[in-house]
């Protein structure tokens, strides 16, 4: 699926200017880059939450799912939150078990901790099949064990449902673990893109190398 070239300007400041991109079904594309590089704005525009400057959709009319950085827990139980996105209690149970929150099913989602809310939100978005699934730092609030379980679940969903996944992440090691392709962003522009192995092990651009060095790789 093609993402058209677009730009995003706030006032007189252009915060994002990207060329045409391609996302593939059944593949996980990680978007990495320093703070303020425009990763989340990119995700929000792709999801249709924000408009690009020309106010046109940047992607063809497909079914897009988007998990924001801080997903909102609705005022109901954890299980009911998850069932809001598809009335399949067996699937909900399976997802909750995979992420270790099955014992919190009946608890109010408002009383979950940050990590538990992140796991609930991931379960909720994975209830339905999307052509493109955009996940904005889904594991930031999780501990390592939950992060690995979440990555496994994302990988299985992507492979099993054949959807394209766009994963916004700060973690280079996470990008290395689960992504097939990597987009490196810097100051609102695409610095580099390619297979994750190539980009993360042998970056072509100096700014990518500096970014990866800074993160200890």
């Amino acid at each position, binding site marked *: 699926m093609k993402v058209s070239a677009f730009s995003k300007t706030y006032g007189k400041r252009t915060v994002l200017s990207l060329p045409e991109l391609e996302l593939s079904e059944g593949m996980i594309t990680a978007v990495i880059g320093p703070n303020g590089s425009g990763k989340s704005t990119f995700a929000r525009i792709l999801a249709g939450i924000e408009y690009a400057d020309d106010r046109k959709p940047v992607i063809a009319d497909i079914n897009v799912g*988007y998990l924001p950085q801080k997903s909102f827990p609705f005022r109901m139980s954890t299980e009911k939150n998850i069932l809001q996105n598809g009335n399949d209690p067996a699937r909900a149970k399976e997802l909750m078990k995979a992420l270790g929150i099955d014992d919190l099913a009946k608890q109010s989602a408002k009383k979950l901790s940050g990590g538990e809310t992140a796991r609930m939100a991931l379960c909720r978005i994975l209830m339905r099949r999307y052509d493109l699934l955009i996940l904005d730092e889904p594991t930031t609030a999780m501990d390592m064990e939950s992060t690995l379980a979440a990555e496994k679940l994302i990988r299985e969903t992507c492979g099993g449902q054949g959807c394209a996944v766009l994963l916004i992440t700060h973690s280079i090691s996470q990008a290395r673990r689960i992504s097939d392709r990597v987009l490196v962003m810097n100051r609102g522009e695409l610095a580099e893109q390619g297979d994750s192995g190539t980009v993360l092990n042998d970056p072509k651009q100096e700014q990518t190398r500096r970014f990866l060095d800074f993160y200890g790789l």
Partner: protein
Amino acid sequence: MGSSVRKAIELILSADPELLNILSTTARVCLTSSILALIIGVPVGILFGAERFPGRKILLVLNRTLIGMPPVVCGLLFYMLFSGVGPFRHLKLLFTVKLMIIAQVVLITPIIIGVMETFVADTAPALRETARGLGFGRIKEYRLLVNECLYSIFSAYLLSFARAIAEVGAVAMVGGAIAWKTNVMTTAIMMYTNRGSFTLGIALGLILLTLSLIVNIVLSLMQGRLSR
């Protein structure tokens, strides 16, 4: 003082007909006006909080001004509109319970709008981003938003009911505090105190305080349950 309080309690326990009439008129005016204000104020407040449209900020400033409007000014306005020289004199509503209800609706609806707008403006952006990200439609998005607002709706209602039941200026002006017709608790307290008849005034004061206490207890109990 002590004997007046004792007599007031005896009056309440003896179900004095005049006291019962005042209580039923008060209940009619306050319940009707607060429910009407709720029906108008909740959707408008949610709309003001959740949507951005031209003129919204002006409307919010106007609403905040109305929240602070002195009840006597509201009463004066309605008195002028419905009195013998006013444009609506043919409706013959002055000194009726109906006009007391209308005046109170005008007084308390801005409170409900204000409470709802403040809560929704804070909650809606995050909820909306999540709901749209999941691919929910507008109806489901609003249904979830209303579900988030239950406690605010409840507290806005109790706040408006408390204002309605404690209000004296507007209802005195448009109702005229006519015994057995438009006399409510607050106007009756004023009337009987002016006459030097403290017993009924104290009895009504005790009932008002008890109602205020009940409202606060209910609010505290519901707070935990509805915010879950």
